[in-house]
């Protein structure tokens, strides 16, 4: 079984802590995404799993084997990099063949001229060729095998990088923002291809991204990291519906969740909306509220932008809270058939109390008592 177990991983750059004790179990065959804003330590964690960086404390176990002292090549992991990292001087075929040659040919057989003469080399080379052709056919790059990386488009390079990782059948695939160099359309297409690949291979995938949409659409589980800490690990819908921390609630979901400081509400509304004592921040998703007449809503404000996506319309409203200066930006989803909205129109917003998330002053989620009991 090729799961990964991380326990209390700590990493510092000088005096600055980058990872503050990360413990995480990644199951065999799981697609796990590490997501978080840039600089949160997710790439460092991936490099520690790969063996490219060493942790200062903690332990990495891959497939039941402690790998802390092992070099990257001995860990049975493959990695796909953000800029693909293909060898520019080698053809696609040779790029994919290199990891196999390094493993199967002896040092003498790899020598430039002498190696070609060595007796055992030919059958091994034929085996390598067969496997590369199979992998290339699978990734639809068979026609590119003789080209150099410089002659390929971004999407093709991405596939070659995947192919190079796949040929040696590693237990674990590590991917460091592999889609961020592609254009928007190709990115969506590659998302689907990588998840399909994961299903077919059944290997463990660890995918790093800063894009919450990638994390939400591709993963079995998502691990949200902030400032070197793992804040919440769970299935995508669990993170969306049931975030444990205000930062998770704000990071996951597009458009962003609406955040309302309790202090901005007047006495009556506060009493009606706050179900848990001590809640200092309320949050609700754009689809968890209804529009109503300005006077009837808990919050009211002026429409600033109408974002029509066809299937949904998102209204950006500048609400005027009772006890503070300035405005509070809110987003509400409405069905497209509802009616036409004009910018500048005054509307009321009525959030569903059952779907209102409540957080304490430090951003921790507070749950209503009956839900805790249940």
């Amino acid at each position, binding site marked *: 079984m090729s799961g990964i177990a991380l326990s209390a991983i700590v990493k510092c750059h000088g005096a600055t802590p980058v990872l503050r004790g990360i413990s995480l179990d990644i199951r065999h065959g799981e697609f796990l995404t590490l997501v978080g804003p840039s600089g949160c330590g997710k790439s460092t964690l991936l*490099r520690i799993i*790969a063996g*490219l960086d060493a942790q200062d404390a903690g332990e990495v176990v891959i497939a039941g084997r402690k790998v802390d002292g092992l*070099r*990257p*090549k001995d860990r049975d*992991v*493959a*990695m796909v*990099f*953000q*800029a*693909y*990292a*293909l*060898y*520019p*001087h*080698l053809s696609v075929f040779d790029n994919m063949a*290199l*990891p196999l040659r*390094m*493993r199967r040919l002896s040092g003498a057989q790899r020598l430039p001229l002498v190696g070609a003469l060595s007796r055992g080399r030919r059958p091994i080379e034929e085996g390598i060729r067969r496997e590369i052709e199979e992998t290339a056919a699978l990734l639809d790059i068979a026609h590119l095998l003789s080209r150099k990386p410089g002659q390929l488009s971004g999407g093709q390079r991405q596939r070659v990088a995947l192919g*190079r990782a796949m040929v040696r059948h590693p237990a674990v695939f590590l991917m460091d923002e592999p889609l961020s160099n592609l254009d928007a359309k190709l990115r969506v297409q590659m998302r689907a291809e990588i998840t399909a690949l994961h299903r077919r291979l059944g290997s463990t995938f660890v995918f790093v991204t800063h894009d919450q949409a990638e994390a939400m659409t591709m993963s079995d589980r998502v691990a949200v990291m902030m400032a070197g800490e793992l804040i919440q690990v769970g299935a995508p819908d669990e993170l969306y519906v049931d975030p444990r921390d205000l930062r998770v609630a704000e990071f996951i979901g597009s458009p962003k969740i609406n955040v309302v400081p309790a202090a901005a509400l007047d006495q009556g509304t506060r009493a009606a909306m706050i179900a848990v004592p001590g809640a200092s921040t309320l949050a609700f998703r754009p689809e968890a509220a209804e529009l109503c007449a300005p006077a009837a809503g808990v919050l009211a404000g002026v429409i600033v932008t109408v974002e029509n996506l066809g299937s949904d319309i998102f209204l950006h409203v500048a609400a005027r809270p009772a006890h503070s200066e300035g405005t509070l930006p809110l987003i509400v989803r409405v069905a497209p058939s509802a009616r036409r909205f004009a910018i500048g129109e005054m509307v009321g917003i009525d959030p569903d109390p059952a779907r209102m998330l409540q957080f304490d002053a430090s951003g921790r989620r507070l749950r209503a008592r009956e839900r805790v009991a249940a």
Partner: protein
Amino acid sequence: MSTLAHLFRMLRWRAFARHGALALTTLFALIPFVWMLSLSVKPPEEIFQPEFHLWPQQFSGVENYRAALTAAPMHLFLINGLFVCATIFLLQMLVCVPCAYALAKLRFRGRDTLFAAVLVGLLVPPQALAIPHFVLLHVFGLLDSYAALILPWVISTFGIFLMRQFFRAVPDELIDAARLDGLGEFEIIWRVMIPVAVPAIAAFGIFSVVAHWNDLFWPLIAVRSEELSTPALGILLFRDDEAGQFLGPLMAGATIIVAPLVVAFLFAQQRFIDGISFTART
């Protein structure tokens, strides 16, 4: 329309001025060269005539070149030059590339201090080291040998600096990928860094070969035997005799010596230019 025509006129005038300036400098650079070629085909009495002809009235190129090739073992000088330059370059690469890789891509204590030492090394002119080198070679009894011609140049701080600058531009991801693919550090150098750095190696090779092929200073100090002479040193053999008499063969010899570099330049013109613009960039 008229403004467009005006613009064209201006551009043409500018181009004219630019080409004029370039032609003038080229002329300055080429005149000694042309003079050399011209003298190498003239008989001795025509060389000192008051009036100048680019092409001699009496062609004696055959005599001069025959004298150049037979009076001194010219082929030996050329072979020596080739051997010394090639060996220097290969040994320089053997030292520079691993050093540059370590300075550019590996993290270890004291790396920046070492790189600063390389920069200091760049500031020291080779002539300043001539006497220490001479003494060292004397102590080891290596004077007047191929080793004396080659060893002082084996560690090139310029080469280390140039390659280090180039290696820094190679993405770290490429090295990480190689490590995951199972390459060791020396295999990374051999299979990834060197192929990627071919432009930089070519640029450095050009500098190195040109410098040592043309070098007169060090061979003059290090070597006495005629059979160890490099081309630039060998040519002095003509001057040792009565120079006036042998000016024609001397120029013929000089032509033979620069010919390989000129031919190499014509074949690899683009590489030369790339190499020089590359060093300008870093």
